[in-house]
């Protein structure tokens, strides 16, 4: 395993353009999407969809998306329902519903023939796993046919039962007020990043958390109670990369180890000293792993 200092910076060979999109789901949620791509995109490369975790937004991927697009990839990021610029829709938040939202984003941006690489962080990983394991998703052909790879960051397939009092706290106005105070918000979220996370990363995390609607935070954290996707993992034939920080206190590294062991074609990367907010703490490493996965599949 290489340390972060040894990870090469991706070649920034392309000027990057970004375009904003909105799509509607079958229950009328509006999902805000940003597509980052090189000025001359290569349609033979897979579309890479980055799915953020609870109480974040597509902007959590900004550095990763930009580096990948500059290296020639077409990247889509979107706000999960109820987050940032996306609306909640009629159906309640659940892992299955978020997987169908991912399917809508993929179906909106690609033809059925174009392969897709999905990168999910934390709760975005739960949705990515549910999408990838569901043979009916993305019909005709199902997800399996078009899935060229999965990158699962700080995530798990089971065992994420947020205690009821924490779910309640996520929706509490008092907690929201505390999050809006920078020093206090960063302190409250101290367990979500590693000990060496930069002030910039910690503050970005606080802002994302604080700007998420309390109802969305609480619904998201409640949605993973009882989640167990282990029975579907064997169906995911696409190559996968599992990344975990050794200091992750939110989704403990043991869950990532178990996930990597259960997926038919997975490689595990454990990053020393890094916490749960991998996209903010080490975006270069995430970009590198996605880049390698895409190139390996060509």
């Amino acid at each position: 395993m290489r340390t972060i200092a040894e990870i090469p910076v991706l070649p920034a060979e392309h000027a990057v353009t970004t375009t904003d999109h909105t799509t509607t789901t079958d229950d009328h949620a509006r999902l805000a999407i940003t597509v980052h791509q090189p000025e001359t995109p290569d349609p033979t490369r897979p579309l890479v969809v980055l799915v953020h975790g609870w109480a974040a937004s597509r902007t959590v991927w900004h550095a990763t998306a930009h580096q990948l697009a500059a290296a020639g990839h077409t990247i889509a990021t979107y706000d999960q329902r109820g987050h940032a610029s996306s609306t909640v829709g009629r159906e309640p938040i659940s892992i299955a519903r978020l997987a169908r939202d991912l399917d809508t984003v993929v179906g909106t941006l690609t033809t059925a023939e174009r392969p897709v690489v999905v990168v999910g962080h934390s709760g975005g990983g739960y949705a990515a796993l549910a999408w990838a394991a569901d043979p009916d998703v993305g019909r005709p052909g199902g997800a399996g046919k078009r899935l060229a790879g999965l990158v699962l960051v700080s995530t798990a397939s089971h065992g994420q039962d947020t205690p009821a009092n924490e779910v309640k706290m996520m929706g509490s106005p008092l907690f929201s007020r505390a999050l809006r105070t920078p020093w206090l918000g960063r302190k409250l979220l101290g367990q979500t990043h590693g000990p060496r996370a930069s002030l910039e990363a910690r503050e970005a995390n606080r802002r994302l958390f604080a700007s998420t609607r309390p109802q969305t935070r609480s619904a998201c954290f409640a949605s993973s109670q009882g989640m167990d996707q282990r029975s579907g993992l064997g169906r995911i034939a696409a190559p996968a990369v599992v990344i975990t920080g050794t200091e992750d206190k939110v989704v403990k590294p043991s869950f990532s180890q178990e996930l990597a062991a259960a997926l038919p074609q997975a490689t595990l990367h454990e990053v020393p000293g890094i916490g749960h907010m991998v996209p903010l703490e080490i975006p270069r490493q995430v970009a590198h792993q996605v880049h390698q996965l895409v190139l390996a599949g060509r």
Partner: protein
Amino acid sequence: MHAIHHTDHTILPHPTPTVWNAILNELNGKTTWWHPHNTHQPGPTGPHTTNGTTTTTIHPAGIGKPGPKLHFTSTTTHITPHHTLTQTHTGHFHGTTTYTLTPTHNNTHTLLTITFTTTPHHWPKLLHKLTNLTTKHTTATQHALTNLHHHLHHQP
């Protein structure tokens, strides 16, 4: 000044010809699923042929509500039936609108993509500095697309 550039998408559970007809009917002023924000009035030659026109009136507060209205006239520059309709527009906005229809789900569904690239002119130029017209545009378009879902669902 920033141009407005936004793409709205929706997947409709109807075949492409049905969606295509719904768009042309709306641009010809025969249906009302873009209400209450937009109304359409066809020119002497409608938008279903090259060089045909339609005039769009934007009602920011909704039809019949007080307040200024914005207008632009669109001319069809490219048409591939059941697939693409491209219009350039002038008036309070100068730019291009492209409607693209892609069959999905074994031709039982249609992915409708509307790309609006434009620059505000005259007083909307000032308005664009004061308020985010891109957000207003996509909110109105997504509202219209929700109406289109209902319209097609209830169509005999």
